[in-house]
């Protein structure tokens, strides 16, 4: 618990508007690093000056990073590359641009990124800058044309933060031109946003306390008119609303009377958040750890992917004793600081908000409506018919690669072999003639859930090997699981004329739903982690018309 107290003590220094470099040197934070990661750094200028700060901010996020820093190398030849969780290209192009023009340098950059892509399937972060916005856009275009390559645009980042990126005095002193102020803030951005968004499971929900967190004061004592909404609290509420509009669930956890809370949100027009903005509301006098478990269940997510914000350190520690992998933030008296700490929490920021991210919050609301509908029907088929569900199957859909990869990495419960593919690995499978990546979209009368399942398969002789099946929790509970999967598998069996289907299976901490599903298939264990089923025994789905299910392929 000492580690969590240290974190709460130092977060005002780490996340203040203007970070004081000297004060950061005084911060004591144990290297707990529950999550150990390896990051290769390919560079032609100094990154060592940023390392103490990269490590400090990573430690705040409970991540231990082993940095494998290559020699100074203007040619970026990636000699002796070893497996890593991420690759960073730390490039100062100024020296190279003295010899060649920008277009030629850009072509060279693209060739180096392609070379690295061939050597590594890990996500690649290109951290560099140019002297013009237009050139930055061209660099970004190069990255976006490649799979799993992201541009950390340090120039635009500094412009947005009114910082001077370069300090020419430093060239001979430190081996990098990056200025004092920019170094620390770039380290923070890298450790809290750019890198975690590539390598950590995302935070899916922010659960906030009410009193002295969303406002100043205690509702039960100060009354509805007595609790104070400071400018900082407005900023915090606006920031939470932004996260929600990016597909992050909001939940409310408060020890209060529900009637008071309901009235507060109804009567206080100055609150930017409405009670309906919270996908789960847990107001009671019970333990907050129990409330958070209920939130996880309601939102169909793991407690590990919830960030809990509370002003009471005792409450935070009590919750951690019951849910040790929960993420926590101490709500400061300065709510604007709290907003910044939340914004920087590793795993919350995303490189890109996909359409499927945006659908998540609405999908949950639709689920409640579905449950209401299900209770009206005694017959399961009648209920399914009333849903008017539509399934759409895509084969090797490169345009959906981000969502497909995200599903492989985010899905914990219905995940048959826990492969956790990178974008580059999925792309290789899509381009391999013997392999198939099927993505399945689901919509019904209540919502369009987007891609809710993926199946990755490969043909070996006359065997169809199902390397992975992942299905989002959002698709489960409609009684469609078997139809979703078997329709795809039967299509692959016909396409490849396979006699047997072999499923790769790996037991994990939370993938019991997938393990139960495969157990019901009654195949035989061919070897450890492999279950073999004769193609003729794979259930056929013939009655889609009866339940009004529309199925299509592209």
């Amino acid at each position, binding site marked *: 618990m000492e580690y969590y107290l240290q974190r709460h003590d130092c977060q005002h220094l780490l996340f203040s508007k203007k970070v*004081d*470099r*000297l004060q950061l*040197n*005084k911060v004591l934070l144990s290297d707990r690093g529950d999550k150990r990661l390896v990051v290769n750094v390919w560079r032609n200028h100094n990154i*060592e*000056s940023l390392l103490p700060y990269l490590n400090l901010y990573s430690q705040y996020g409970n991540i231990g990073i082993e940095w494998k820093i290559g020699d100074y190398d203007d040619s970026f030849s990636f000699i002796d590359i070893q497996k890593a969780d991420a690759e960073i290209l730390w490039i100062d192009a100024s020296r190279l641009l003295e010899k060649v023009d920008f277009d030629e340098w850009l072509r060279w950059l693209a060739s180096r990124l392609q070379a690295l892509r061939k050597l590594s399937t890990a996500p690649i972060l290109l951290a560099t800058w140019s002297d013009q916005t237009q050139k930055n856009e061209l660099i970004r275009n190069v990255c976006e044309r490649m799979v799993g390559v992201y541009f950390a645009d340090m120039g635009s980042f500094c412009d947005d933060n009114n910082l001077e990126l370069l300090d020419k*005095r*430093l060239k*001979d*002193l*430190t081996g990098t031109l990056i200025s*004092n102020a920019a170094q620390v803030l770039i380290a923070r951005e890298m450790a809290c946003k750019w890198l975690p968004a590539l390598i950590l499971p995302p935070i899916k929900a922010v659960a906030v306390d009410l009193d002295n967190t969303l406002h100043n004061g205690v509702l039960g004592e100060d009354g509805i008119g007595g609790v104070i909404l400071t400018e900082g609290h407005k900023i915090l509420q606006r920031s939470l609303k932004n996260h929600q509009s990016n597909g992050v669930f909001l939940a409310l956890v408060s020890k209060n009377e529900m009637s008071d809370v309901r009235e507060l949100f109804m009567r206080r027009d100055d609150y930017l958040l409405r009670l309906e903005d919270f996908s789960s509301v847990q107001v009671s006098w019970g333990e907050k750890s129990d409330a958070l478990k209920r939130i996880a269940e309601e939102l169909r997510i793991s407690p590990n992917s919830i960030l809990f914000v509370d002003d009471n350190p005792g409450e935070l520690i009590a919750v951690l004793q019951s849910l040790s992998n929960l993420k926590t933030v101490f709500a400061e008296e300065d709510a604007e600081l709290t907003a910044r700490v939340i914004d920087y929490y590793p795993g919350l920021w995303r490189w890109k908000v996909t359409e499927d991210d945006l659908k998540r919050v609405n999908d949950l609301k639709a689920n409640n409506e579905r449950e209401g509908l299900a209770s009206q029907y005694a017959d399961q088929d009648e209920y399914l018919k009333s849903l008017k569900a539509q399934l759409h199957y895509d084969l090797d859909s490169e345009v959906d690669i981000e969502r497909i990869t995200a599903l492989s990495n985010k899905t914990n419960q219905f995940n048959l072999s826990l492969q956790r593919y990178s974008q580059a690995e999925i792309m290789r499978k899509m381009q391999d003639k013997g392999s198939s990546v099927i993505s399945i979209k689901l919509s019904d009368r209540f919502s369009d859930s987007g891609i809710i399942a993926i199946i990755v398969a490969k043909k070996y002789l006359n065997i169809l090997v199902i390397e992975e099946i992942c299905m989002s929790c959002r698709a489960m509970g409609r009684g469609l699981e078997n139809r979703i999967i078997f329709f795809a598998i039967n299509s692959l069996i016909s396409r490849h004329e396979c006699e047997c289907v072999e499923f790769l299976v790996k037991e994990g901490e939370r993938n019991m739903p997938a393990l139960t599903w495969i157990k019901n298939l009654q195949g035989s264990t061919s070897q450890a982690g492999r279950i073999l089923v004769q193609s003729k025994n794979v259930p056929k789905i013939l009655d889609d018309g009866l339940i009004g299910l529309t199925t299509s392929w592209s």
Partner: protein
Amino acid sequence: MSNQIEKKVIDILSTILKTDIGVDSSKINTSSWDSLKNIEIIFALEDTFGLSFSIGQIEKMISVKTITVEIEKNET
């Protein structure tokens, strides 16, 4: 004035080098004072005193005494 600056310099050096620093400390007699730490010290001094040192000054700043002298020059 000089004493106040010297005291602040010693505080900053102790924080960054994470060792006891005295008025006679220098790069030569302090093992943790390497080139990486040296630039960290310069950044901290610039932030604390609101100054910007020239390269010529930075090259001279290799001990508590020389640092104090260069800061005093800038302040006057």
